[in-house]
């Protein structure tokens, strides 16, 4: 049966990863009809939602798991996957458990998590530091200290794309790394405005201010353009999620020798368990529903998980798969995962609306040098206090 | 004479603007009626109402005894010719002529026959395959008439059909329309604001002003005995002379006095209201004033010639009488010179007297 799957994975590494899913699904005798929409979730999501609410749903669709699809589920437009989940024992092998929790609403499972993405990484170009004559830093502070040397060598210390979500990401990563997982939980999870106004966060804003200065010369829009600055040794480093690794791979670079990765910025080694998930809209055609079941289980099968995540540069959602092929950085991630140093993604904690406001704030902060760290923090406190 | 078109208590308003008021008009079978009036007086509007192109506000319209007030234009048995010809530019003359018949689904041989007949009558047989753009103004107008002709309409409506043509063509086509009417004998209603056309063509003329018919009568009657000052001034070119003054009691009949000029009104046929004294206007046509033609006139005076306008066969002479402009039409051969003193005179029988207040004929 043909099943249309919509997603916004169109970059080189991403498309290759999707290919693995499609291959596995096609192998079951069904057919994966690819409905890729380029341009990040912002472009793609309205189209997906329109189609679902417009009564012309696709077979399956990507969402960041978390609260993005909550209302669609509540409106009864998504299929309940509890039966097949129970049959296949998803609860047993999906790790960390929080992943499945965020697919669960009122005790029923509505989505299939396919990977774990962590944002808390600092990617460094070994060659850039070599040329600047400083050692490759081992944590954020060393990195900040090395910035003048990089600049002197004509390099941008920190590469940063101008898209709003990237600047927010920098803030979140610095928050988790410098203030620790608890501070993260307090601000994003508990929406504790008082805490957000406190000294720990002041320190975070100070660091964000540093990042702002270091990235002032970074003149690119897309995250992968920033990454390629690191790859080309034009920039010292980039704070970016593990998907950046795919770009290094495509460029033929090796972790350790060509580039260095510092999870948690080398300070607090934690991993955010956000990631992508697939949802299955309710369809009238029973054949298609059957195919949806097949796709759901294929996505979680150990082989697919390995193949998919190796290409995507993310971590599998199953704790029980063999990842011998994984590289240096991925192993670091797996290790952290094994230790259980995980935090939920902001998508799971805060509504898209509030996150958008946070986005707006940091976009403005990074583009407007006159907005002081103090003022930005005040505005952040406002957002936290009214967030839901 | 049977009535062919009959308009009963017709009123028409566009929104709040009333254009026609309680109009009644009976047009005889085979009559040539001309609607004459200044621009904006509602002539076209009346014609459009008769044609069914505008919905009337109240009243009724009968054509050949049939109440057609709410019928479609095509069902009224009328043909219409417009000022701008309104030929369909993308169709050949033949197509233009036959369009209405084709729409009505008439069989082809019959259409061909009618087109041939019309084009013979109008002598446009040679033009049948041309498009309107390749025709001269006069030819276009003929085609437009032909379009009404082929419909075998009982009533022809013309809305200023000649006013886009130059003087020469106009006079030629005027005669043709006259001939056509003599040949066909249809009822024709003809709108114009050219009084020469009205005079030459009409059996009866209806002079309109502000949506009201002022006078409905035979041309000569209207020309010689206009019912009011408006009608008097509207007809005639060069226009009637008007002298403002007073009617005062005189010798055996009242006199008309304008400043220092006293004109005896003996012989003037006062209307039903009888003799009158008070402010009045005396109207006299330029061609009814004699210039240097002896002293046989009941009234005569000496005036100085101010302007001389030769107009071909005749010459218009301007002078002042009682402090007011007065014009006289004389044969070009006997035209006086500017500055010359001439004796003018006229017969009050030929003049018209109008009430100074409302302009009605006295």
């Amino acid at each position, binding site marked *: 049966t043909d099943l249309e799957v919509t997603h916004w994975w169109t970059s080189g590494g991403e498309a290759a990863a999707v290919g693995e899913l499609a291959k596995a699904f096609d192998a079951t005798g069904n057919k994966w009809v690819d409905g890729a929409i380029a341009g990040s*979730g912002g472009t793609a999501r309205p189209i997906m939602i329109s189609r679902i609410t417009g009564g012309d749903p696709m077979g399956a669709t990507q969402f960041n798991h978390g609260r993005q699809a909550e209302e669609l589920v509540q409106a009864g437009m998504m299929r309940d996957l509890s039966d097949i989940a129970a049959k296949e024992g998803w609860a047993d092998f999906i790790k960390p458990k929080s992943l499945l929790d965020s697919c669960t609403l009122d005790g029923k499972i509505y989505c299939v998590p396919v990977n774990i993405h962590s944002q808390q990484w600092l990617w460094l170009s070994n060659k850039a530091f070599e040329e600047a004559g400083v050692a490759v830093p081992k944590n954020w502070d060393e990195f900040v200290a090395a910035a003048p040397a990089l600049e002197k060598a004509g390099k941008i210390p920190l590469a940063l794309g101008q898209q709003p979500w990237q600047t927010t990401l920098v803030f979140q990563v610095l928050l988790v790394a410098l203030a620790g997982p608890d501070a993260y939980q307090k601000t994003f999870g508990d929406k504790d405005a008082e805490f957000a106004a406190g000294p720990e966060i002041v320190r975070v804003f100070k660091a964000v201010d540093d990042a702002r200065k270091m990235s002032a010369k970074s003149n690119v829009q897309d995250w992968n353009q920033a990454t390629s600055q690191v790859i080309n040794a034009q920039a010292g480093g980039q704070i970016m999620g593990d998907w950046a690794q795919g770009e290094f791979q495509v460029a033929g670079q090796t972790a350790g020798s060509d580039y260095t990765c510092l999870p948690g910025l080398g300070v607090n080694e934690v991993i955010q368990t956000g990631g992508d998930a697939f949802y299955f809209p309710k369809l009238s055609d029973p054949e298609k529903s059957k195919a949806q079941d097949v796709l759901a289980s294929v996505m979680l099968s150990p082989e697919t998980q390995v193949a998919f995540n190796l290409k995507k540069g993310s971590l599998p959602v199953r704790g029980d798969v063999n990842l011998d092929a994984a590289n240096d950085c991925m192993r670091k991630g797996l290790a952290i995962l094994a230790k259980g140093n995980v935090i939920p993604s902001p998508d799971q904690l805060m509504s898209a609306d509030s996150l958008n406001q946070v986005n707006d704030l940091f976009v403005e902060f990074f583009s407007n040098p006159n907005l002081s760290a103090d003022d930005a923090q005040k505005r952040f406190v406002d957002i936290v206090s009214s967030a839901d | 004479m049977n009535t062919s078109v009959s308009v009963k208590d017709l009123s028409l308003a566009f929104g709040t603007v009333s254009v026609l008021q309680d109009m009644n008009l009976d047009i005889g079978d085979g009559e040539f009626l001309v609607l004459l009036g200044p621009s904006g007086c509602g002539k076209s509007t009346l014609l459009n109402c008769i044609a069914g192109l505008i919905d009337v506000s109240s009243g009724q319209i009968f054509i050949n005894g049939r109440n057609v007030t709410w019928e479609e234009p095509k069902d009224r048995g009328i043909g219409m010719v417009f000022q701008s010809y309104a030929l369909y530019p993308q169709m050949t003359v033949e197509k233009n002529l036959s369009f209405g018949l084709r729409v009505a689904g008439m069989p082809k041989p019959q259409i061909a026959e009618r087109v041939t007949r019309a084009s013979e009558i109008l002598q446009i047989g040679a033009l049948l395959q041309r498009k309107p753009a390749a025709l001269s103004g006069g030819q276009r107008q003929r085609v437009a008439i032909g379009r009404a002709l082929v419909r075998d309409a009982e009533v022809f409506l013309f809305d200023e059909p000649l006013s886009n043509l130059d003087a020469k063509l106009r006079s030629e086509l005027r005669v043709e329309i006259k001939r056509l009417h003599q040949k066909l004998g249809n009822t024709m209603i003809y709108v114009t604001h050219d009084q020469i056309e009205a005079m030459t063509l009409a059996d009866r003329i209806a002079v309109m002003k502000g949506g009201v018919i002022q006078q409905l009568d035979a041309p000569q009657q209207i020309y010689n005995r206009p019912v009011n000052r408006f009608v008097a001034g509207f007809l005639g070119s060069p226009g009637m002379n008007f002298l403002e003054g007073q009617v005062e009691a005189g010798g055996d009949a009242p006199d008309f006095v304008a400043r220092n000029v006293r004109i005896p009104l003996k012989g003037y046929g006062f209307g039903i209201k009888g003799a009158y004294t008070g402010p009045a206007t005396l109207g006299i046509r330029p061609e009814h004033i004699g210039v240097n033609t002896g002293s046989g006139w009941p009234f005569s005076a000496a005036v100085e010639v101010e302007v001389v306008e030769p107009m071909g066969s005749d010459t218009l002479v301007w002078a002042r009488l009682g402090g007011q402009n007065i014009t006289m039409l004389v044969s070009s051969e006997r035209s006086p010179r500017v500055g010359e003193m001439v004796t003018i005179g006229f017969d009050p029988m030929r003049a018209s007297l109008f009430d100074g207040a409302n302009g009605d004929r006295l």
Partner: protein
Amino acid sequence: MSTAPTGRPNRLFRNLNAKVASIPMILTAVVIFVGGTAWTVVYSFTNSRLLPRLNFVGLEQYERLWAAPRWQIAVENLLIYGILSLIFSLVIGFVLAALLDQKIRFENTFRSILLYPFALSFIVTGLVWQWILNPDFGVQNVVRSLGWESFVFDPLYNPSLVIYGILIAGLWQGTGLIMCLMLAGLRGIDEDIWKAARVDGIPMWKTYLFIVIPMMRPVFVTTLVILASGIVRVYDLVVAQTSGGPGISSEVPAKYVYDYMFLAQNLGQGFAASSMMLLTVIVIVVPWAYLEFGGRRRA
């Protein structure tokens, strides 16, 4: 002789065909434009998120809207862009039309050149100009490589200039059409007016300024409708060129609406913003449209 009805036929059935033929227009006007707008306004008073829900929260969305710096920037940008784009489009369009109207050679060639950008979508326009204005590849780079090292021209990367960068692209795309409209208007001016002005000894530019332009009022009205409706809706151009960046310095209301409706999944907020846009449009346009198209019958 038939006894035709003497009474007035039912009003509804007069002109029936015209009414039937207008059904698409009536439906569009009523269902889509009025209905859709009303629907949007109603839901702007709710706290709808991903899906529209009738959960009224009063003016909350509007309060938040006007407190949002992003919305303020968006409105400000639209004002700058709108006013400048109106002025420049009209001025440039008119000047070009006036030049083309001088009985010049190669008029067709010039006109095609000026008009072709209009055939391209905003996406394409945005992309090309993004590239030309890119300091690393585009104009700045070229001028620098010619030896003028300190030359800076990076409007799209300078928050205080970015809206002008967008304007450059917008004008490039749109002035051709305006020029065409103006040219058509100029061609409609009576030859005699020109001659009268020449006999009066009025210089060319004064003739344009004091005589011809005032005569072209209908053309300017049509042009204004086309321009203004485009300006209010400007979205693709910004997205293709800067995605609202750097930061939020090139945000525009239409983008705010879109982002809130679909990205932030806060339909209520998006609806509130679009209702604001609508309100502005209605306040400006309705009285004008009524005067222009409603009240009087055709001339």
